[in-house]
């Protein structure tokens, strides 16, 4: 199996005027090609920081981190990943299709190839027909789908998603979760997914990384025993509930270590 992301003894400290904040401490993790890995934990546990470190948006202060066998910076320069942020961050002066074209323009794809890729990815996220709309004319769920299409458009093998559905209501979120699974199935991408929802993490992932705060570290890594094909009602099966219980336990263990201060 090919290793996509590998972290060894990774640490990341933010210096502030009020003393250093240890965002990540001694993180060891390997993510293989085709994995769907969820990072779950309370806020401040460093899950987003870890994702940003993979994306070269933050610089680790200790340990080693490699992406596709390169440093994160080389991987970023090689356009190795697509990143989906908490907010859709679509540019309001561009139509949906022009937003999806943005990375393609920057990476120098020909106009013909741009329109072919736009059509393909918009179909992939079920947004066909909304090409000429502006972001502010779409609902929050549709905006986030467009931002996923934008991250998929240049066909990076790795997809980094930072609480992409955090701001959406539960009905839309369920719907997008099952669509995301189908999309993962069709594209065979490696996905790193940050969330603070236990059902979401268990439903989506092949592996669940449980993290805890102060300092941010990995407390448990759970391999999912669920089949790859997951209808939404799999969430009522005993198997699903058992994994969810283990995640909850891992989160609680992280808290008790903290002396119950939270």
């Amino acid at each position, binding site marked *: 199996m090919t290793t996509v992301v590998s972290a060894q003894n990774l640490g990341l400290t933010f210096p502030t005027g009020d003393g250093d904040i240890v965002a990540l401490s001694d993180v060891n993790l390997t993510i293989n090609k085709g994995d769907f890995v969820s990072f779950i934990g309370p806020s401040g546990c460093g899950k987003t920081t870890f994702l940003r470190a993979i*994306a*070269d*948006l933050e610089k680790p202060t200790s340990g080693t981190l490699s992406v596709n066998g390169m440093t994160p910076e080389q991987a*970023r*320069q090689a*356009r190795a*990943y*697509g*990143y989906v*942020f*908490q*907010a859709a*961050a679509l*540019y*309001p*002066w561009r139509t949906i299709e022009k937003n999806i074209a*943005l*990375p393609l*323009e*920057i*990476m120098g794809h020909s106009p013909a190839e741009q329109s072919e890729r736009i059509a393909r990815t918009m179909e992939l996220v079920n947004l066909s027909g909304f090409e000429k709309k*502006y972001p*502010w004319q779409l609902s929050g769920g549709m905006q986030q789908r467009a931002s996923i299409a934008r991250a998929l458009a240049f066909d990076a093998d790795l997809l980094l998603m930072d609480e992409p559905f955090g701001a959406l209501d539960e009905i839309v979120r369920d719907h997008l979760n099952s669509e995301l699974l189908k999309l993962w199935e069709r594209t065979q991408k490696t996905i790193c997914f940050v969330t603070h929802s236990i059902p979401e993490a268990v439903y989506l992932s092949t592996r669940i990384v449980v993290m805890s705060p102060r300092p941010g570290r990995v407390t448990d890594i759970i391999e999912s025993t669920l089949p790859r094909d997951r209808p939404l009602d799999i969430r009522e099966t005993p198997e699903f509930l058992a994994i969810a219980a283990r995640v909850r336990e891992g989160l609680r263990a992280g808290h008790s270590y903290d002396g119950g201060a939270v």
Partner: protein
Amino acid sequence: MMRSDLTPLQSGLALLAALAALAGLAFSLSTFTTAPLLALVCSLGALSLVRLIWPFSLWLDGALALLGALALVASLPAEGSMPGHHWLALVAAWAFAWLFVERLSATIRLGKLPETGTGLVIPIVFGLALLVAWEVITRGANVPPVLLPPPSAIGARFLAETSILWADFVQTFIKSVLPGYAMGCLAGLGVAILVDRSPFLKAGVMPIGNFMSALPIIGIAPIMVMWFGFDWQSKAAVVVAMTFFPMLVNTVAGLNAASAIERDLMHTYAASSWQTLMKLRLPAAGPFIFNALKINSTLALIGAIVAEFFGTPIVGMGFRISTGVGRLAIDLVWAEIAVAAVAGSAFYGVIALIERGVTFWHPSVRGGRA
């Protein structure tokens, strides 16, 4: 009792208008032959008291205001002061106009009349009422033309001197304001982009720009005349100095308007700083840049006109104003002021229209939430 469809303000205005008309009518009976039209309008105005019993359309109020204005202007005495009851008629006509606008805007607010079209009536009525009052007061009270000429005299002077006014407009607006504005704004934009690229320039240029903007225009205008000569070049230079800094400051602020997440996105694409500038930061700075363009459109005109007070060939709006005051040709000065006001408003309006087209996506333009 007043009918209940009027607000207290509207009832008060209606009462004031009708009573002033009634009083005007009473006083005009003795001099009926000198101003029969005015007496007629006064009696119609007094008749508006029927609104106590019957509904009275707001358009009737508008018609009364219009008739009153026409009668007042037509009955102005050729010389000497206006008789007392004319002033009562003026009060009545003013109150009718106010009442009309009040009722019209209330009707639009309730959605009974469309905003577009009828909404334009309100500022037009307001402007006309102001002009009529100005005309009647200056002529009726025999205000010396040197203090304030009536609009009719300004209009007549305007029509008589169109060639001079046009030459002044070309000299000041076309030759000084437009090139100066374009150069100042482009320079401000360019320097802002350079400043943004280099912390050294930011530390060095911003205080100098600030210093430049603090220089009084009265001080730099004569110096520019010494540097660039008497003709339009020195005026354009003053305009450049005035418009440069607002554009610089606004653009520097605008280039930082893109959110952290939007910049992170560009970073994940490994976009070059040029690509980030062209595809994210400049478009995001659009509303700021247009703000500066709008501020500068009025600043530029002021700068060029004032600069012409300090040495100029014998043409130009500022030159005409300064010499016009000296020769007591106040109506010509007012005509120049009218040209400047119309040119300045039109300039601003054109920039605002372009802004609507370019920054259509901004919540302030599309009227939505962010």
